[in-house]
């Protein structure tokens, strides 16, 4: 029965994003319209077609991780742990050892962590050692890290979170490529809706700025070749766009059942009122220009919260900045929102923080939740030359003060995955 439907709210947000520090640094950067894209510093990008990325200046130990956590975990896990620490602190929940009287039942705390490429960076780095830089197919075990199995299987990221926060509920890594970050939060919401958890740490993390990842996107020309002007390399919806800028980072959200949050007087950023994903069953990397399947996902997600398209005030776009994505997505928003698309504000924060593959979905949900809660919409940076095929309001270059009751965040990924999640302001739902 609808009156008994378990509702899901966001009560904590933690972010590790390029060019900033923590949730507030991230928000300041977005609302200032500042870009974090730069020439790659992690390795010499000289031999690569795309030489820019949005890197995080990240030091796990300085951010509260132990030396052993840093030693055994790939960067994607480290960033997820730091983001989760901030999210849990933000929520005011006492999780883990020494929880107080109002601490949630550890058996009812779940974990859903998204990641598209898991521990690629560590797997590659270790491969260089065991193969002597690609010289030997039969790799040398004497040079292997003790923690290679941790790297091979990305579920170790969910384990690290579960251990850190004493979460005995269902735990999993969600790995649906570039929609992982939306799907992880969607699944986390479903755990709460279905009564299998009261609190879920949901988010995503990816650290793909390594030679193998850059090389494989080079060959299919998915990434930008705008190497001469890294700060302006990511140009979603702009006619000059020429591919995405690789990024990295993590975001973790504390999802909580509404009554659970209310009982303890938690600050509620917003409610998750709908989530849906669909596949285009078309092509691993290609997108049809009509956006039908993404529109279907948006429509179903709105239906779940019985939301009229006209209520949607903001669309946080996938906006990767590839020719076909931005066209596809513009069509999908028009198709799903109908006439309301002409009024909706839509922006891509990838213009500032790059495209961190699976992580970006959760980072974008974090941005969307903050936008709903604070009444400010982050802009699309580097937007100068309109494209006739992308003719919506992309909030060019300058953040906009605007109260929105309902916002959508969407994503699209290799494999044909299309996902949409709907966030509604707490005041709207309480009324």
């Amino acid at each position: 029965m609808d009156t008994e439907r378990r509702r899901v709210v966001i009560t904590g947000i933690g972010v590790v994003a390029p060019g900033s520090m923590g949730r507030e640094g991230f928000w300041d950067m977005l609302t200032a319209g500042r870009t974090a894209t730069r020439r790659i510093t992690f390795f010499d990008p000289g031999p690569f077609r795309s030489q820019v990325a949005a890197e995080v200046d990240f030091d796990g130990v300085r951010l509260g991780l132990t030396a052993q956590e840093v030693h055994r975990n790939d960067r994607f896990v480290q960033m997820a742990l730091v983001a989760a620490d901030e999210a849990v602190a933000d929520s005011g929940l006492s999780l883990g050892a020494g929880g107080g009287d109002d601490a949630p039942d550890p058996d009812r705390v779940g974990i859903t962590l998204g990641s598209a490429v898991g521990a690629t960076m560590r797997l590659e780095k270790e491969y260089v050692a065991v193969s002597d830089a690609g010289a030997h197919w039969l790799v040398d075990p004497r040079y292997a890290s003790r923690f290679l199995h941790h790297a091979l299987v990305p579920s170790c990221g969910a384990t690290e979170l579960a251990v850190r926060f004493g979460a005995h509920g269902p735990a999993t890594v969600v790995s649906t490529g570039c929609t992982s970050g939306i799907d992880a939060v969607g699944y986390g919401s479903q755990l709460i809706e279905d009564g299998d958890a009261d609190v879920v740490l949901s988010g995503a993390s990816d650290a793909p700025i390594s030679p193998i990842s850059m090389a494989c996107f080079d060959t299919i020309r998915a990434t930008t070749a705008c190497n001469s002007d890294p700060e302006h390399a990511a140009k979603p919806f702009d006619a000059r766009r020429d591919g995405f800028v690789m990024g990295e980072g993590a975001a973790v959200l504390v999802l909580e059942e509404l009554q659970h949050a209310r009982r303890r007087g938690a600050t509620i950023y917003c409610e998750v009122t709908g989530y849906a994903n669909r596949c285009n069953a078309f092509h691993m990397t290609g997108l049809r220009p009509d956006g039908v399947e993404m529109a279907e996902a948006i429509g179903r997600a709105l239906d779940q919260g019985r939301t009229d398209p006209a209520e949607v005030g903001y669309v946080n776009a996938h906006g990767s900045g590839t020719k076909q994505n931005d066209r596809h997505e513009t069509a999908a928003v028009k198709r799903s929102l109908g006439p309301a698309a002409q009024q909706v504000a839509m922006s891509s924060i990838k213009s500032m923080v790059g495209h961190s593959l699976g992580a970006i979905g959760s980072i974008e949900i974090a941005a969307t939740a903050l936008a709903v809660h604070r009444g400010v919409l982050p802009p699309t940076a580097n937007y100068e030359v309109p494209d006739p095929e992308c003719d919506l309001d992309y909030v060019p270059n300058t953040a906009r003060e605007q109260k929105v009751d309902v916002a959508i965040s969407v994503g699209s990924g290799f494999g044909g995955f299309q996902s949409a999640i709907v966030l509604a302001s707490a005041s709207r739902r309480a009324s």
Partner: protein
Amino acid sequence: MSGLLVTGMGVVAPTGVGAEAHWASLLRGEPAIRPIQGFDPARYGISLAGQVLDFVPTDHVAPQLLVQTDRWTWMSLAAATLAAEDAGYDDPEDAYATSVFLAAGSGGNEFSQHEIQGLWAKGPKSVGAYQSIAWFYAASTGQISIRDGRKGPSGVVVSEGAGGLDSIGWARRVVRRGTPAVLVGGTEAGLCPYALLCTETSGRLSTAERAEDAYKPFDRRASGHVVGEGGAILLLEEADAARARGVQQVWGEVAGYGATHDAYHHEAPAPDATQYARAIRLSLADAGVTPEDVDLVVADAAGTPELDAHELQALASVFGRRRTPVPVTAPSSWTGRLMAGGSALNVATALLAMRDGIVPGIAHLDDPVEAEGVDLVQRTRVLDLEVVVVLARGFGGFNSSLVLRRHVGEEGAA
């Protein structure tokens, strides 16, 4: 009628390609654990594996897809086709009515090793166009969706060895939200040099050189496990929808599911097995059955003395007060452990056992450990099966339990 039915299964396992070949091999008692072929593993201290030797990729996968994908995906594509054929599942008019929701453990290992090796030996231009779509964990799900035109809500979960069961747990949520059919399960292919080395660092592989010594779950001489490849994909259908399309066979019902995490240590299992036992109890409660109702448990059977002891402890905690000890078997002892593919394969094996009323015994179980309240099945046994529990654990503390129930309906059992 409501509920969730298994209406098709596709098996690609060391014991055979196709469910019946796999089952016949188990009933003949032919261990599929053999010396590793394809590369010399001597330097890793490992000599045995469960390889799928009679899998001919070109029999199952179109040439243009073969070059784009890893062996892991070849086996998934084959298993998905076998499952749909087994179910007599024609493409429904509504493309959104079918989902692909698989588990993955380690991705496109061999493909990726080639590409990383090429990159470091020869430079970025040696990396081919398909690396970006071949190795990532969603590759098999995406390729099946595209090849077969499945547009429903699809997903990929990673929880190491527990993944096969977890994909079923998540698929139930998809079905609850209105999608009537979901392909679940998964395969694994970790038998290239680098992936094997990675797995070896888990410290859980047996270094024994003879199959009868290498993977002996619940035996006093247990020394670890052997890696296997392959797995299974199953078609789950919401019962009303299955009936509406005139389903001809039903393997069984997915009756209950439970999942927990030890949250104890990044690799060591919780010594009290409390959360493992809780996962089993959750699944029984979900299915509305008591421990007395359970006719068989298909164990995770990790094959190290410590992990086996924890599993028996969890079983004793749940089933210890039964009037008779609960029968427990471990079909993975014949194939090696297939990570995410293994728990999916165990579901297929459990349903085959249910159909025929025959339980394969545990391979190489010569000297069983003390097991309170547990009846370790040493030899093939005839046993009427109504309710079977399948267990799985994932490295790091994932615990999952699935309850299968024999289907009673006019369609008749498979």
